[in-house]
């Protein structure tokens, strides 16, 4: 009996540690600045949605959201297509210099180097291409990051699918590429989904490159726009909190929706 009580208390304690900070964010976003600084209330006594309305009417949060969705969608979609093909080529074919066996190490090396290391040259590259502060510049950058990750994840999924199935399809008259597209790709769909989910998460949340590569609401993403807003308004706590809620809501909602795949993708690399 006492061990059950201890278990319940521990669970409640963990929930409180995780959820209290989030409660405070949401509750602050529903207060007025006067209530926040002068009354110091623990919950909103006069709840208001003004802070949220101001974000969209005065602070261009509509553009940030659009930019984030466009950039995330295209960079993940392109990386998935390109990455799945590349991963398949490595998993199934023999390449000159046994390159298919070295790609893994090459991608691992690229993944270990902190992204901040190539921040300056990528900035200079986009500057020289005239792609600063544009969707295209961000999409190109994020696609490259996502491709390395997609190839790395997808290769192992393809290896698990037996070659016999493709052979059978080719005997039945499929081309080599047709066998990949009609047989292997659908079988690897769960792996593709886990890869896509993880890529969406990382891309939507990315801040460092968005900070260096964008400068106006034309291309600023959600994290970038949010950080700019709070850089300007040091004491407008209410707007800051509302921006935090709006900035996190899409991705938290998405993550909870696809929870099961997400946990698989997050933990697979380490346990394997």
């Amino acid at each position, binding site marked *: 009996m006492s061990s059950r009580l201890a278990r319940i208390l521990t669970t409640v304690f963990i929930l409180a540690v995780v959820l209290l900070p989030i409660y405070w964010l949401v509750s602050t976003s529903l207060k007025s600045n006067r209530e926040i600084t002068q009354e110091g209330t623990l919950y909103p006594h006069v709840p208001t949605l003004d802070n949220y309305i101001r974000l969209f009417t005065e602070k261009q949060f509509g553009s940030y959201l659009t930019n984030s969705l466009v950039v995330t969608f295209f960079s993940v979609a392109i990386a998935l297509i390109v990455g799945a093909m590349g991963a398949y080529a490595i998993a199934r074919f023999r390449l000159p210099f046994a390159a298919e066996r070295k790609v893994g190490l090459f991608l691992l090396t690229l993944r270990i180097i902190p992204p901040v*290391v190539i921040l300056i040259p990528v900035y200079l590259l986009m500057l020289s291409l005239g792609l600063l502060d544009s969707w295209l510049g961000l999409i190109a950058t994020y696609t490259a990051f996502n491709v390395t990750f997609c190839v790395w994840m997808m290769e192992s999924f393809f290896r698990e699918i037996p070659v016999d199935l493709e052979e059978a399809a080719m005997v039945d008259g499929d081309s080599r590429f047709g066998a990949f597209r009609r047989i292997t790709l659908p079988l690897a769909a769960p792996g593709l989904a886990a890869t896509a989910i993880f890529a969406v998460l990382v891309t939507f949340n990315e801040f460092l490159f968005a900070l260096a590569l964008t400068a106006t609401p034309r291309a600023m993403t959600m994290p970038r726009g949010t950080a700019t807003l709070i850089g300007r308004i040091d004491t407008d706590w209410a707007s800051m909190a509302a921006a935090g809620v709006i900035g996190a809501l899409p991705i938290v909602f998405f993550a909870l929706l696809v929870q099961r795949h997400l946990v698989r993708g997050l933990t697979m690399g380490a346990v394997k």
Partner: protein
Amino acid sequence: MQGATQARRYRLQGAGLDLALPYLMLAPGLMIVLGVLVYPLWDGLRASTRVYRYGSPVADAGFQNYLHLWSDAQFLNALWVTVKFVALSVSFEAVLGFALALFCLHEFRGIRLLRTVLIIPMVITPVVVAIVFRLIYASDAGMLTALSNAMGGGEVQILGNPLNAFIGLVVLDVWEWTPLMFLILLAGLQSLPHEPFEAARVDGAGAWRVFADLTFPMMRPVLAVAIVLRAIDAFGTFDQVFVLTRGGPGEATRLISIYGYDTAFKFQQTGYAAALFVTIGLVVLALAFSAIRLLRRIDAS
């Protein structure tokens, strides 16, 4: 057996247009990676040996930029702060994550809710995590001050005080990333074989003995991988500090990434910043690969 599947795999390459297929499939990805990752890496190496003014190279510097790093007190301080930050955060995350995973190993009511809730901190945008903690730490409007007021205390100073700000940053990181450690270690615990544990139970071994003699030794590889992965990530931490403290007060929370960013974009010392980043990249790679080699040796023995 291996040879037979290999041979079949190669026969599948077929003839005619199909011969080019592997290259056609590989080409788009390769082009993107070469253009946007590998070329910049090379370009960064080149930039690190030059002196820049207003964004364009004006002189060759040879290895001067690299040598200068080691007499730059701000660089050395940033490196030290980063090492402290990584060591402290990752240790707490490993211990807490392990404890949580052991706690959640046995099914009980409420465990699904607990797992769902634990996903939230690590998926929230890091910039927003920093906002959350600014709202907790703020001396005038923060949660800590509000709680302290409700209990009759006064203002709580976190971000204005060097030591407190650093601890505050570690707390943020532990809050955000313990769940990842927990998920990895839980998956590891669930994949352990049952037999040794049943044998131990039959022998009447106590909980502590089972942990010290069975669970911990068997979990060591997974634990090591989780720690290495997390440490690599923590080394590059940027977003949270940028929004929470911007490196301050003074240099108390100025991690290496923040110092590099400021050197490049605030002080416009492009070549020097490039050398700094190349050095960081090499340090992280060296640490990661020696960790991997160490792991292989543990695995082999």
